[in-house]
C-alpha cells in the first residue's frame, strides 16, 4: 500500500499524521503500490500506529487489479473460472452479455470512436457482475504479444481442440459447464501456436505508436482488435454477433482496454474535454459525443440505438463511484481517477497511477 497526504502529493510507504486532538478528522489517501498487487482476498493490511509504536488498529485490504491471465496463480485462475461459470449458469444474466453484443447491437458499438469507451463500460459491467458473488475477482487480460500456454490449457480457457474445433477442458474446470442457449461447450481453433508465440496482431509497441491523439489511436479497433478476434480460425469469437459465446472474449477485451489505458498513461490522455484524449471523430452520431450517455445502460431504444436495451443500468459499487448507473463517455475516460472522484475502480498490473 502507499499513502498520500493529499490526492496529488508524493506517495509514501508510511504516513505521519498529526491529529488536532479535538476529534476532528484529518484527510489522507490510500492506494495500491504499483508492482505489488494482491493475489488473494485481504492479503494486505494497513496499521495505525501511535508515537510509541503501539498498533492501535489494523485493517486487512485487497489491492485488486486486472492481471496478465497467463501469470495468474492457480487460486486466482480458479476463482475467476468459478465466478465466470456461475455467471454463465445464471442464463438470464449472461444473456445480457450476449444481447448487448449481438447483430442488432453491432452499429452501436463498433466502427466508431465510441468503440473504446463503450467496451470499457461493458467490461466494468461484466466485472461487477462477477464480483457480486466473488468480490476478489477481476477480469484478467490476454496479452497478445506473449506466448500464453497457461491461458490455452485444459485448466483455463481450454486446450488443443479436436478435429472440428471442440476445445477440451479438464474434468475440474468450471468452464466444462459452459452453455449458450442450451448448446454446451466451446469451439475455438487458434491460427497460431500459443505455446511459442503471441497472436498475429499489431504489437503493443506498435499500438502505442499509432499516434498521439485519440483519432489516430482509435485505429486500434482494426488492428489489434479485429485481428485478435480473427486470430481464431474457427469459432464464435471470430464474428461480431457471436463473439461473447466464447469466454475468451472477456480476456481479449480486457487486453484491448489495457492497451488504451497504457496509451492514456504514456500520452497523459485523461482529460475528457481535451480532443487529444477523446474525440467523437468524423461522421459522429449520437452515442459518439463525450457527454452522450451510453446504450444499453441508458435504456434508449429509439433509432439509431438498437431496438432493445438489455440489462438495465450499470451495476454500482457499495460506495459512490464512476461510472454511474447511466454512464456517459466522459465518465470512463479518466478511469484511473487522476482527478479526484473520477475513478472507475479498476486498473491493470502494468499501468501505474501516475
Amino acid at each position: 500500500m502507499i499513502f498520500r497526504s493529499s490526492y496529488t502529493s508524493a506517495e509514501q510507504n508510511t504516513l505521519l499524521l498529526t491529529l488536532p486532538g479535538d476529534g476532528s478528522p484529518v484527510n489522507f489517501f490510500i492506494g495500491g503500490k504499483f508492482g505489488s498487487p494482491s493475489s488473494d482476498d485481504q492479503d494486505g493490511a494497513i496499521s495505525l500506529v501511535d508515537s510509541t509504536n503501539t498498533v492501535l488498529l489494523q485493517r486487512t485490504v485487497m489491492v485488486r487489479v486486472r492481471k496478465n491471465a497467463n501469470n495468474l496463480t492457480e487460486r486466482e485462475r480458479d476463482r475467476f473460472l468459478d465466478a465466470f461459470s456461475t455467471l454463465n449458469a445464471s442464463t438470464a444474466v449472461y444473456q445480457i452479455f450476449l444481447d448487448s453484443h449481438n447483430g442488432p447491437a453491432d452499429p452501436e458499438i463498433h466502427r466508431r470512436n465510441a468503440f473504446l469507451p463503450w467496451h470499457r463500460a461493458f467490461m466494468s459491467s461484466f466485472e461487477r457482475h462477477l464480483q457480486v458473488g466473488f468480490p476478489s475477482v477481476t477480469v484478467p487480460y490476454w496479452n497478445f504479444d506473449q506466448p500464453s500456454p497457461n491461458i490455452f490449457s485444459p485448466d483455463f480457457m481450454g486446450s488443443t481442440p479436436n478435429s472440428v474445433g471442440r476445445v477440451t477442458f479438464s474434468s475440474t474446470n468450471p468452464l466444462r459447464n459452459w452453455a449458450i442457449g442450451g448448446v454446451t461447450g466451446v469451439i475455438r481453433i487458434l491460427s497460431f501456436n500459443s505455446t511459442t508465440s503471441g497472436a498475429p496482431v499489431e504489437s503493443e509497441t506498435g499500438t502505442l505508436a499509432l499516434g498521439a491523439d485519440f483519432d489516430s489511436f482509435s485505429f486500434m479497433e482494426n488492428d489489434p482488435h479485429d485481428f485478435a478476434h480473427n486470430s481464431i480460425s474457427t469459432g464464435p469469437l471470430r464474428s461480431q454477433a457471436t463473439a461473447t459465446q466464447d469466454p475468451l472474449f472477456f480476456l481479449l477485451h480486457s487486453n484491448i482496454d489495457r492497451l488504451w489505458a497504457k496509451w492514456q498513461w504514456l500520452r497523459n490522455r485523461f482529460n475528457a474535454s481535451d480532443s487529444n484524449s477523446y474525440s467523437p471523430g468524423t461522421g459522429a452520431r449520437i452515442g459518439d459525443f463525450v457527454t452522450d450517455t451510453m446504450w444499453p445502460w441508458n435504456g434508449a431504444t429509439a433509432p439509431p440505438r438498437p431496438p432493445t436495451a438489455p440489462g438495465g443500468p450499470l451495476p454500482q459499487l457499495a460506495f459512490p463511484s464512476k461510472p454511474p448507473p447511466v454512464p456517459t463517455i466522459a465518465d470512463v475516460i479518466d478511469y484511473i481517477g487522476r482527478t479526484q472522484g473520477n475513478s472507475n475502480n479498476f486498473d491493470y498490473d502494468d499501468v501505474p497511477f501516475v
Partner: protein
Amino acid sequence: MIDKDEYIKRTQEQVTAHEKAIENGLSKLRSTQNSTEYKAALQAIPSVKEVEDVRKGMQLLTNKQEDTEVRLLVLRKARSAIGRNTEYIRDCFLIVQDTDDQVELRRAILSVLGAFSFGSREFVPLRPEYMTLLRSLLDDPDALIQERAAEELAKEKDEYVQRRLLDGLAGREQPIVPTAKAIQLLGYDIHAEHYPVVRKILEDPRSDETTKVEAIHVLGNDAQSRDLLTALMTDKQQPIEVRMTSATAMKTSNPDYFTHLAKSIVLDEQEEPDLRAVCLNAMMHQSDPSALYADDDFVQKLTKVRSLTTSDALKQQSTGFLTKAMRHKPKG
C-alpha cells in the same frame, strides 16, 4: 519495486524505436529494385499504411504471376489499409472467388475478410456482396474454404446454409462439410426441426465418437432427447467423453433430473473418476446449487469419497464442493 520513471522512459524509447523501424523500412521498401529486395523489405517492416505503398502492394497482391509468398506478405503487412478501401476489398473478393488462383492465398484472404466484416466501416456497404460470395464458396473445390464459408454463414443464422447443412445430414444432397461439423454449425441457431435428424445420427451405432459428441452438445434443449442422453450418461460401455458430455448437456436442460442421476454416479466407487468429477463440477455450477450444499446426507457421503479416492480430479472437486457446503451452513 518497479521504478515508474524508468518504466515510462523505457516504454517511450520502445515506441520511438518502432516509429524509426517503420520509417527505415518504408525508405528501403520504396527503393527496392526487384522482387527479392521488395520481399526482404516487406519482411522487415511492421506494417504498410501509406497510400502509395499500399497501392503498390495491391498491384502485387492482385497479380497472379507474382510469387505467392510476396502476395501473402503484402496481405499480412497491408491488411489494415486494405480493409479501409472499398476497391481493395472488392479485389480481395475477386481473388477468393478465383478457383484458379493459389489456394493458400485464397484461404488467407477469406480469413482477413472475416476481420474486415467485424470492424471496417468501408466493408459495411459490401456486406450483401460478401454474403453472396460466402454462399458461392459453399461449392468451392477446396474443402477448407467450403467449411469456413459455411461457418461464417451459420453464425449469421443464414437460412440457406442451414438448409444445405440439414439436407446433407439427411442424405438429400452431397454434404458440404463433415457430419460432425454440420451438426456443430447448426448449433449456432438450433431449431426444433433440426433435432430429429441430429437425434437419429446420435442413435446410429455407425456414428463415430466426434460426431456423437457434437450431437450431444446441441441436443441439450431437446426435451425428446432426455432418455437418450440419460442412457448415454449412464452406459459404462460408451466412451468417457460421450458420457461426460451427456452429463453436462443433461445439467443444462434438466438440472433436477440431472442432479438425481449425478449424485448416484458421484457416490459410485465403480464409476470412472473423471465422470464423477465432471458430475460434481456440473452440480456446483447450476443456477442455484444451495439446496445441494444443504443436503447433509450427500455431504457426509462425499466426505468419505474424498478420503477414499485416489483420483486427484475427484479429490480436488470434492474438496471444492465441501468447502462451499461448509460456507453455506447456517451459522450458530
